[in-house]
């Protein structure tokens, strides 16, 4: 399955991943409209962590044994057995935030205005996840990974 790895040694903390994630999950897919006209505004599903020189953008790890899925009270969260992607059925999500507590990566965002969680969906509607496609410094690595073949450390990590 595909995974997104942050490369903190080249993450420049610009937050463009957040911006483009937000746009990709907006109604209009237009950055200016998404920020200025849509209410409630879309929520980015990736979050930049920055502390001094350390920075990296983290989104859902799509864990093998996802705690969020196991903790989900409503069955809204699922791990797709084929793609490995952890998805949320927003119809079923009631915004209880149990998964927010159970995700050790802080990768699930409570979208308070909608009363639903927001999380990485791998931008299935796009050719490439928006965060990866728009990272100006290739600090988000999209890799294809199989259980037999764990990911290689990026060549120049």
């Amino acid at each position, binding site marked *: 399955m595909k995974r997104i*790895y*942050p490369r903190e040694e080249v993450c420049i903390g610009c937050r463009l991943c957040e911006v483009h994630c937000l746009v990709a999950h907006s109604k209009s897919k237009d950055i200016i409209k998404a920020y200025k006209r849509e209410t409630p505004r879309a929520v980015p599903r990736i979050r930049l962590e*920055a*502390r001094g020189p350390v920075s990296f953008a983290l989104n859902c*790890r799509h864990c093998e044994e996802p705690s969020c899925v196991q903790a989900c*009270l*409503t*069955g809204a969260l699922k791990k797709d057995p084929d793609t490995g992607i952890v998805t949320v059925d927003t119809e079923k999500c009631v915004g209880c935030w149990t998964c927010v507590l*159970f995700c050790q990566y802080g990768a699930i965002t409570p979208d308070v205005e909608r009363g639903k969680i927001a999380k990485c969906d791998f931008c299935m509607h796009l050719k490439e996840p928006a965060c990866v496609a728009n990272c100006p410094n290739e600090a988000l690595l999209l890799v294809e990974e199989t259980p037999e073949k764990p990911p290689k450390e990026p060549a120049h990590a």
Partner: protein
Amino acid sequence: MPEYLIIGNSAGGIGAVEAIREVDKDGAITIVSDEPYPAYSRPMISEYLCGERNLEQILYRPSDMYSRNHIDARLGKKVVKLHIDARQAELEGGEKIGWEKLLLATGGTPIVPAMEGMGKRGISTFTTLDDAKAIEALKGQARRAVVIGGGLIGMSVTEALVKLGLEVAVVELMDRVLGALLDEPASRLVETKLLSNGVKLYTDKTVKTIAGRGANDSIVGGVVLSDGQKLDCDLVIVAIGVSPRTQLVKDTLVKLNRGIVVDNHMATNVAGIHACGDVAEAYDYVYRTFRLTPIWPNAYVGGRVAGFNMAGKTTEYRGGTNANSLKYFGLPVVTAGMVNPPSKDGLEIISKAEGDVYKKVILKGGRIQGIVFMGDIQRSGIVFGLMRDGVDVTGFKDKLLSEDFGLSYLPESMRKEKIKAGSR
């Protein structure tokens, strides 16, 4: 004879079924539940009650999950007795179902204390969908409700009733609501929310008597509190708590404490019998002992571990602890682990309060023992994760409560390992 017999059709039972099917595509599974519904989300009965969701919308899994997984679902059937030597479960009416592997996922049963005036119409517990339906049936005639118990269930039914437009009074034995889950400041914040939404609070009190009205006083008319105060109402919800539903193994070989005793594989002392969920005493990594941790996620994970082990894939339960995410009138609250330590000796408590935001972590020897986050819960998962992993947070403990706390505070090697490992 089915290979797998699962008693209980909630988080634990479903967790087990799904795990079994990951390993064993063909083994015959029978699931028995005394509730007639496909698995639904028990915590969501309040949403059902206040009309925000219907049955379809609170189903925990798609209703075709039984047929797709070739599961013989015996819903609305109650197991009355286990014949452990014969490996048979006896249903109400005498039918017997055998097993190779048995999972007891029977959950809990509401505690109803002895009160004068019980048996009147308008009294209900609040743990099952049927409870919610019963209250719903009464809601047309009801204007005022008294909720006995200010715990998790009490709070959740209170909010639902408020949403339905009832006047609600909460009677709580302790001096504050949610006393078992929250520390005092957090309880006070919740109480403020309740009061501002018109809920009346009667703490340090119990209900002595349920008064009646109408013919023969057969209908609830009010309650009399321990201090003699009388509250008029037409609905009483008993939400004191639940106890493990252990009747089936009482006086059998299966070892029982408060709940069914299980090991790290969720196995009981009797070969072929596993237990999980609210009925089982599984490992609590905070208290470092086997105890009841009756929360939904633990039930599911426990069931999953049990299911794997039942299907032959040896799997260990890494432990769970009490951890809850609550939301009352829009105020998000998460809490986990040891929130009200019996003694503060050797503990370090870090907290921060600012308006609606309240955060606290309890440390022991640099390791997190308990957390309470209110108002801003976004980073609580990371802190909870550190607690679960037993990470020594001494180096950055002051940052745990900050808004931008994150994995970036972890030492580099740990951080990188975590980000990478998480994906596998």
